[in-house]
């Protein structure tokens, strides 16, 4: 088997495992949700089947046991229990390790297999200490089609019940058809005026759980016969239906489609034959036809959704595309510049068209790289579940804005910082249930993870309703570490900023979760490299909120182009507040100190000419670009401000990786290179 195929299998399996984890966590909340059970089963089934095909025999053998258990769950022969969810989650981790071909986990795998075998033998389960997880109503991701047969008792009118509103209520749950069966209505001679002779065949496609359908009939359940069956349970796997003879003959070219239709027209339809033979009433035939039509509609809709929803493209190809678009943007800028200089109307027209197309292409390409942040959020449910269990805490994770999209690179690099922050919230933020009760809080702590757009940025907030940050402890620790002077007067905001200092931890003891002080400085660094910012808000005994502000994309930024001597530089526009002039007289007034008076406020500035060791004459009037980073203003003195520039970021080669204050470079329209300044780093260096 080629490596390529094995890699393809691994890629698919990782996706299935991610889906499996999400499904299991959801199943824990909604143990009666057959759709979720089906999803877990299908994921296991695919991992096993493909695993065996691509030579991952160990995975296939291991998954077999779990699949068998979930088959029993699917058939209602085994309940969903916490043990089952725990074991399956651990199995999922084991399969991942097997995929990564990690060794030394044989013992764990063996123990899990034994546990599943015990489950199968029925020695572990709901019989002793454990009860099945109580069910709660939930919705399906994909709608199911149900066949509902509702046959009221003859005396239902005598109870004052009118069945028609129930039918309308059902219609409100989804799409489908309602067919009244009138065969039982007798002729007037035998007719009992108070009897209900009508029954109904209903086909309903809905994403509501079966319990919601049952609820519709809750007040008439003693006055009617009711059956509810799922019609299209196997719809997802049911790609290949049994072909009819006619279809095969047409496919083989033995008859044409037209000939077949003509021939079929000459024979009677099955429904007609059955009705003529007196075996069935036309109403029954029509109800069945309606069901067939509804299932067909749902299948077609699903197929359509599947076929247009996505295609799989390797990430490298996307990166290459972005690179190429970047080059194109650069060339297009050169073309625009050249056309402007030549002043040729034809060339100008072409240049404008190229510019428009390039901009569209750029925006489209950037949008391809955008992923919903929910892909990352999903992983944290497991983290919170496992860690809170480990620490004996009760914590619920609520996520909001999972559909918010961010550049895929930002999302990938955001994972670790978010893990650190959430672990801190679990370990230091949320109190133990007993402590929370003593403070009059609910036993279960809440961690709220939310994302929302804010202009060209995304705000990610991690909020907990825990103990909050203790300013006194932070102050003491900061003095101890020599970060601040004994008598320093700092605002709460500045004090909270101390938690990002390397090695800073206020935890009284180090746990396996956190407390070593290696987390938050790494978080800060990562967010800085993503050109984002981080803020902390906290209130004692109420909780803490950490706000990450991140750019939507890393590939292109809006920049302010400036010039120093013959060199060009770009400052990220998001950090720029304003530009002011700086004369020699202004400098004399501050006795040569690098300070500028901004409407009464003294703002320090850095002269880029000095920072980069550029020689030559200073202009009469310099320009100061005022920026704001981390709540502080900082000016950058340049010779000339050129203007806004949409910047395609190119990374610098490894030779420059240790150069502080420069985060990348961009190629300008005329082919020259401009350096992109890292405003944060330059400011910190002062």
């Amino acid at each position: 088997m080629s490596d390529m195929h094995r890699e393809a299998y691994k890629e698919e399996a990782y996706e299935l495992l991610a889906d499996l984890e999400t499904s299991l966590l959801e199943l824990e909340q909604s143990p009666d949700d057959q759709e979720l059970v089906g999803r877990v089963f299908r994921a296991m089934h695919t991992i096993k089947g493909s695993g065996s095909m691509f030579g991952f025999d160990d995975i296939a053998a291991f998954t077999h046991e779990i699949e068998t258990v979930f088959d029993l769950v699917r058939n209602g022969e085994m309940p969903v229990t916490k043990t089952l969810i725990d074991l399956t989650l651990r199995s999922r981790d084991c399969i991942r390790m097997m995929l990564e071909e990690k060794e030394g986990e044989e013992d764990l795998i063996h123990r899990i297999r034994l546990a599943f075998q015990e489950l199968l033998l029925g020695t572990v389960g709901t019989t002793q200490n454990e009860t099945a997880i109580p069910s709660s109503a939930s919705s399906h991701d994909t709608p199911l089609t149900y066949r509902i047969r509702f046959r009221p008792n003859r005396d239902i009118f005598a109870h004052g019940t009118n069945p028609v509103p129930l039918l309308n209520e059902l219609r409100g749950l989804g799409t489908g058809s309602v067919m009244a069966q009138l065969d039982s209505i007798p002729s007037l001679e035998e007719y009992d005026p108070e009897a209900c002779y009508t029954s109904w065949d209903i086909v309903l496609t809905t994403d509501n759980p079966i319990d919601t359908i049952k609820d519709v009939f809750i007040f008439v359940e003693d006055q009617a016969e009711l059956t509810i069956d799922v019609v299209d349970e196997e719809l997802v796997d049911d790609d290949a239906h049994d072909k009819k003879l006619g279809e095969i003959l047409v496919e083989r070219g033995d008859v044409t489609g037209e000939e077949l239709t003509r021939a079929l027209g000459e024979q009677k339809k099955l429904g007609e034959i059955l009705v003529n033979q007196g075996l069935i009433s036309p109403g029954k035939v029509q109800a069945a036809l309606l069901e067939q039509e509804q299932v067909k509609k749902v299948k077609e809709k699903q197929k359509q959704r599947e076929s247009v929803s996505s295609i799989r493209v390797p990430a490298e190809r996307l990166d290459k595309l972005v690179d190429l678009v970047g080059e194109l943007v650069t060339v297009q800028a050169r073309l625009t510049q050249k056309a402007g200089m030549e002043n040729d109307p034809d060339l100008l027209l072409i240049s404008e068209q190229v510019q428009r197309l390039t901009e569209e292409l750029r925006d489209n390409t950037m949008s391809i790289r955008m992923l919903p942040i929910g892909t990352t959020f999903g992983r944290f449910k497991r983290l919170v579940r496992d860690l809170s269990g480990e620490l004996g805490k009760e914590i619920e994770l609520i996520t909001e804005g999972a559909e918010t999209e961010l550049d895929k690179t930002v999302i990938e690099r955001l994972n670790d910082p978010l893990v650190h922050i959430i672990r801190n919230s679990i370990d230091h933020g949320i109190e133990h249930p007993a402590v929370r009760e003593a403070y009059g809080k609910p036993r279960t702590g809440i961690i709220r993870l939310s994302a929302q757009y804010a202009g060209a940025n995304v705000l990610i907030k991690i909020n907990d309703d825990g103990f909050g940050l203790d300013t006194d402890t932070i102050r003491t620790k900061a003095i101890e570490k020599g970060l601040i002077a004994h008598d320093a007067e700092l605002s709460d905001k500045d004090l909270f900023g101390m938690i990002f200092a390397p090695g800073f931890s206020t935890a009284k003891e180090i746990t396996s979760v956190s407390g070593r002080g290696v987390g938050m400085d790494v978080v800060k660094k990562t967010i800085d490299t993503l050109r984002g910012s981080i803020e902390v808000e906290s209130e004692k005994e109420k909780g803490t909120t950490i706000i990450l502000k991140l750019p939507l994309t890393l590939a292109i930024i809006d920049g302010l182009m400036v010039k120093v001597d013959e060199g060009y530089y770009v400052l990220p526009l998001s950090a720029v507040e304003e530009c002011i002039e700086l004369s020699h007289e202004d400098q004399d007034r501050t006795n040569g100190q690098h300070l500028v008076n901004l409407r009464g406020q003294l703002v320090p500035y850095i002269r880029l000419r000095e920072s980069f060791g550029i020689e030559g004459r200073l202009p009469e009037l310099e320009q100061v670009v005022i920026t704001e980073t981390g709540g502080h203003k900082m000016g950058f003195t340049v010779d000339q401000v050129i203007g806004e520039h949409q910047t395609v970021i190119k990374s610098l080669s490894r030779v420059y990786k240790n150069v502080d204050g420069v985060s990348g470079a961009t190629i300008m329209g005329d082919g020259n290179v401009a350096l992109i300044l890292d405003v944060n780093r330059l400011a910190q260096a002062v």
Partner: protein
Amino acid sequence: MIDIRLSELEGVGVIALGGELTVAHAQELRTSLKEVVYGYRSVVVQFGDIADVDLSCLQLLCSAHKSAMKQEKAFALGEHVPAIFAQLFADAGFIRDTGCRLDPGETCLWAKEATHG
């Protein structure tokens, strides 16, 4: 109160219905329907102002139609079908492509052809 009027027009029995066509008056409606179905070779149901109508009325009309079919008689709804009545038989799932086994002439009261023109 149910309002039932029987009349004859060129040998066709006409039953005009109005008021409350509900289960409370089903017995009365059944008696009148029997009278008109057994009394004429062709019957037409005409609707006046309907205050209320329920499933029992639909069933009774269906029963009358079946009785007529068994005697090889004609039974049909008049041209004007009030919205309240049409809404009820649509909601109750009565509309169908073809009629029952007793209806070889395809005169079913609820067939799409008959109800929607």
